């Protein structure tokens, strides 16, 4: 069997899910949103971006929708399953942060 590309969920795929939480986006919009929400630390290149999008589409975590503004661009929307997975991943990371803070590995009020 080909290796499952989203198990565990790569950070790029998780950021794409987060970028689509508020509104539908096309590829370039997703890239800018990810850059903004990570403070510029993650700049998705075309290869990584569309490879992740393809994996998310195949798993049914996002869906392609008809574009409202520019018909030439493909636009993507977060599905219910994608939203559920994004919440679960965020919970998992929050748990990790709580442990890190309890162990004094992480200082400050991050969560």
């Amino acid at each position, binding site marked *: 069997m080909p290796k499952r590309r989203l198990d565990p969920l790569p950070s790029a795929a998780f950021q794409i899910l987060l970028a689509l939480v508020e509104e539908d986006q096309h590829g370039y919009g997703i*890239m800018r949103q990810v850059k903004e929400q990570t403070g510029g630390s993650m700049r998705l*290149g*075309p*290869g*990584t971006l*569309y*490879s992740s999008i*393809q994996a998310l589409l195949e798993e049914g975590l996002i869906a392609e929708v008809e574009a409202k503004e520019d018909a030439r661009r493909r636009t993507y929307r977060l599905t219910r399953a994608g939203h559920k997975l994004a919440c679960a991943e965020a919970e998992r990371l929050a748990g990790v942060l709580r442990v890190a803070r309890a162990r004094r590995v992480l200082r400050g009020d991050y969560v």
Partner: protein
Amino acid sequence: MSEKIYALMLRLYPTHFRRMYGEEALQLVRDRMRDERGLWAKARLWWDLLADFATSAPREYGNVPVRLAGVAAGRRMGGVPSFWILEDEPMRVGTWVWASVLSLMLVGTSAVLMDHAGGHPLGSFAGAGRNAAGQVQWVPKESGAGMPQGDSDVELVGSGPRTHTPGAPSSTGSTGNSIQVVAAEPKLEFDVASVKQSKSGDGPNANIPLGPGDMYVPTGGNFVAKNLSLSVYIMFAYKMSPGEAAAMDEEVPGWVATGEKYDITAKTDKHDVTKDEMRTMMQALLAERFKLVMHRETRQMPVYGLVLAKAGILGPKLVAHLASEPCDTALQLAEEQKAPPTDTVAGGFPKVCGGVMGLPESTPEMTKLGARNIHIGQLAQVLPGLGNLGRPVQDQTGLTGTYDFVLELVPVPRLAPTDAANDSATNTVGPGLEQALRQQLGLKLESKKSGVEVWVVDHVERPTQN
């Protein structure tokens, strides 16, 4: 321009990716180029694109699209290995042509490089026996002279020390790492051997000289020795000098050193067996019958350094050996004599080469030794026994090559190193060791402390039944 370059880079992605997202990716790059202006922004854009290309393009070849994976799964039979289908269209004619041209160029270039690298032709692989750096050498196993007989196994020997197969082409003149496939040499062992404790009371004797020298009597593969301590057999097997054997004797059980005598009779079907091969066979025999385990280690101890008395000057009885002179190490023992012949050549040196041997002395009080074609280290090995020095002698003359010598002296037991200065005063019938060394060979002994390699017996048992 930048857009065209990225379009070319996109061609290196799998077809399914290009078809699905090629135009989108190109549009994304256009958008970024439009929005990110300035030299720094452009540089960062290209850094991003190149880093993204380096990581995502190889990964994309490992991703099988669900559509194609489904097709492949339908064709797979349970448990039967098969390929995943990565492309759903046959390659174009142009692709086939390019692939053929590139393959031919690659094969041609590799052949030319292999043929000319280091000046060693490819032919050396096919049994020519040449051993070039980085080449693989096949040494065929033959049953010719000097080649081991027996099974036809081969073993792969990696880089490192050269493996020399007797009778096979030499591997000299090469440097660097190499891999050799050589015929496996059978383990050197006697074919039959008998070990028993001596009960006869005869004097000690052996059919070949058991010392560390190369003097040897061809015996047709027979080894016969009687009434000798295990220590002597060990000394023979491991080519120990008398000093090394004496040092070992101090640490082994008494029955090994002198307490018990053994008769060993052994035979090998290798009729042209050399002395060193017989030593190796004796090692195997001792390991098997006496469970002998040994190791070598370096210890700091008082020694005598054998040095030139005057720099650059040899004594009258020490001369460099001339390679042109006939030199035979095979000692022909007279059957009735049971002792080495003492024929000499011009200069009073012994006729036989390769080991230190006794010569007819001038007076009964004296001892005369000589040798031809030996290293100074071999001379140093016999000196502790001559002068009862009580410590090893190390060759520190710096003399290389081989030498001939004759040394005649009165072997006076020595109690302490300071006795060396009194040799000439106390010996009225002839020179002592130090005086003889200085006057005849131009050498002297210097007391010092140094690292000495010694043999250590880790384990030994009384022999098992034959």
